C-alpha cells in the first residue's frame, strides 16, 4: 500500500490513473452507445481510416494529429452516409472506410520521399506515456460527452433504439446521427492516442459486457461500465506493477477475469 502511494508520486503513474479515469468515462459513455448499436468496430475503423489523414498531413507537412482528426470525422460521416443512404451494411461500411483510409495513408507515405516515420505510432499511444496535453484534451472531451449525454440522453437513447420511430416524433434523426457519429469519432481518436487500440477495444466492450450481466438499462450500463472500467484500469495498473508486466495487457486480463467471475457467480446464484 505504501508502495502504491509512493507510485502516485510519479507523474507518469498519476497521469496514467487520471487518463484511466477519463478513458473509463469516455469508454463508458461512447462504448455503451456503440455496444448497444452493435458497431464496436467503429473504433478500429475510425482509427485506421484516420491513418489516411496522418499520411496526407505528413505529405503536406502539416500536424499529423490534425489530419487524423479531420479524417476521423470524415470517415465517421462516410460510415453514416453509406449506411443510411447507400444501403451498405454498417459493419461493411466500417470495413470499407477502414481499408480506404489505410490505403490513402499508405499511398501518401509512399509518395513522401525519404524514410517515413511509423505513422501508426502517432495514433497508438500507451497509457503509461500519457502527456499532460493529452489529459487536458481528454478532459475537454469528457466534459463534452457528459454534457452531451446529460442534455440529450433521451434523444440519443431513442435514436439508437429505434431510429424510424424517433423520426416520426419530429426529429431529424439523420442529422442527429451524423452529429453523434462525429463526437464518437473524436472520442475514439483521442482515447486511442491515450490507450492504444488494443486497450481501447477492450475498454469499449468488456465493461459493457460486465454491465450487461447486471442490467439491461442503457443508463445503468453507462454507470456500471465506467465503474468496472476504472476498477479494471486501477487493478491492472497496480497488478502490472507488482508482476512487472505491460500494463495494457494486464488491464485487459483483469477485466476479463472480472467478467468471468461475475458471470459464473451469477449463474450459480441464479440456479439456486
Amino acid at each position, binding site marked *: 500500500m505504501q508502495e502504491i502511494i509512493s507510485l502516485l508520486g510519479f507523474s507518469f503513474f498519476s497521469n496514467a490513473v487520471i487518463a484511466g479515469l477519463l478513458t473509463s468515462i469516455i469508454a463508458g459513455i461512447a462504448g455503451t452507445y456503440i455496444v448497444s448499436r452493435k458497431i464496436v468496430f467503429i473504433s478500429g475503423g475510425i482509427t485506421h481510416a484516420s491513418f489516411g489523414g496522418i499520411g496526407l498531413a505528413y505529405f503536406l507537412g502539416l500536424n499529423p494529429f490534425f489530419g487524423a482528426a479531420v479524417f476521423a470525422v470524415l470517415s465517421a460521416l462516410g460510415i453514416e452516409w453509406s449506411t443510411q443512404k447507400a444501403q451498405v451494411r454498417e459493419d461493411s461500411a466500417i470495413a470499407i472506410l477502414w481499408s480506404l483510409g489505410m490505403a490513402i495513408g499508405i499511398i501518401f507515405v509512399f509518395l513522401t520521399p525519404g524514410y517515413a516515420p511509423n505513422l501508426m505510432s502517432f495514433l497508438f499511444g500507451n497509457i503509461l506515456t500519457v502527456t499532460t496535453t493529452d489529459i487536458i484534451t481528454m478532459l475537454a472531451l469528457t466534459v463534452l460527452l457528459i454534457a452531451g449525454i446529460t442534455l440529450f440522453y*433521451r434523444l440519443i437513447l431513442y435514436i*439508437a433504439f429505434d431510429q424510424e420511430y424517433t423520426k416520426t416524433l419530429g426529429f431529424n434523426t439523420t442529422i442527429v446521427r451524423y452529429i453523434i457519429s462525429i463526437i464518437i469519432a473524436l472520442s475514439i481518436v483521442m482515447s486511442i492516442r491515450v490507450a492504444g487500440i488494443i486497450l481501447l477495444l477492450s475498454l469499449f466492450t468488456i465493461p459493457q459486457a460486465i454491465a450487461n450481466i447486471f442490467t439491461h438499462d442503457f443508463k445503468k450500463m453507462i454507470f456500471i461500465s465506467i465503474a468496472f472500467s476504472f476498477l479494471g484500469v486501477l487493478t491492472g495498473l497496480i497488478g502490472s506493477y507488482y508482476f512487472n508486466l505491460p500494463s495494457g495487457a494486464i488491464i485487459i486480463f483483469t477485466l476479463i477475469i472480472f467478467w468471468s467471475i461475475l458471470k459464473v457467480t451469477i449463474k450459480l446464484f441464479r440456479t439456486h
Partner: protein
Amino acid sequence: MDRTPIINIKNVSAGYSPDKIILKNINFTVYKNDFIGIIGPNGGGKSTLLKVILGLLKPLNGEISYKEKSYNKVNIGYLPQINTIDKDFPIKVIDVVLSGLMNGNPFKRFSRPEKQKAIDLLSKMGLEKYQNNPISKLSGGQMQRVYLCRAIINNPELLILDEPNTYVDKNFEKELYQHLIELNQKMAILLVTHDIGTISSVVKTIACVNEKLHYHNSNIISEEVLKTYNCPFELITHGHIPHRVLDNH
C-alpha cells in the same frame, strides 16, 4: 363533425423504387375527429401509405401538406406493423413507452407525472409488473401492448395504428377497441386492420387500399361497392352487409 383537415395528400404516388410503383395517384384528407379504417389485401400498400403519411417514405410524386407547415409540428402517434428494433437493445419497457412523449424536444427530461402516466398506461395494459423489464423479455402480445402505450401516451392529434391487434389476446382486443373509441373523442385515428368484424363497429369511415385508394365515407360496406371499386375484399367472406355509397366518392 369537425372538418379541419390535419393532413392532405394530393396526387401522391409512392413505392420503394421508381420503377415499381406501389401506390398510384392517391388523394386523401384526414380531418380532425376522423376514425378511418384502412383495409385491403396483403401487399396492397396499406403500410406504405402510412409510411408516406409519416414522412418515413418520400413520395415519388405529388404533395403532402400538414395542418401546420412542417411535419415536425403535427403531433402523431404511431404503432408500426413490424417492429424491426434490435431485441438485445438495453432499454426498459417504461422507457420505450416514455419515448412517445418526446414531442420534438431534444432536451426532453421526464417529470414525475409523466412517468406516472406511463406507469398508469402500462397498468391499464396489464403490464405494470413488467415496467422495469428489458424489452427483450416480453412475449409477442406484451410487446405489442408496449408499442401501443408508446403510440397513445402523448395524446396525439393523429393516431396511426398499423394492425394494432397483432398478437394481442381477445380480452385485450376488446378493451383496445373500447379505448380507441374513447380516444377518438380527442384525436383522429387511422387504423389498419384485417379484422373486418370490428371495423364496422368502431370506425366511422373506411378506406380500402390496393394500389389505388377507395374512400368510403361510411362504415357500412357491401359486396356491391367492393366490386364497383374493385376493392379486393375480405368482407366478401362475411356475406352481405348493408352499405351506402356517397355521391362524391
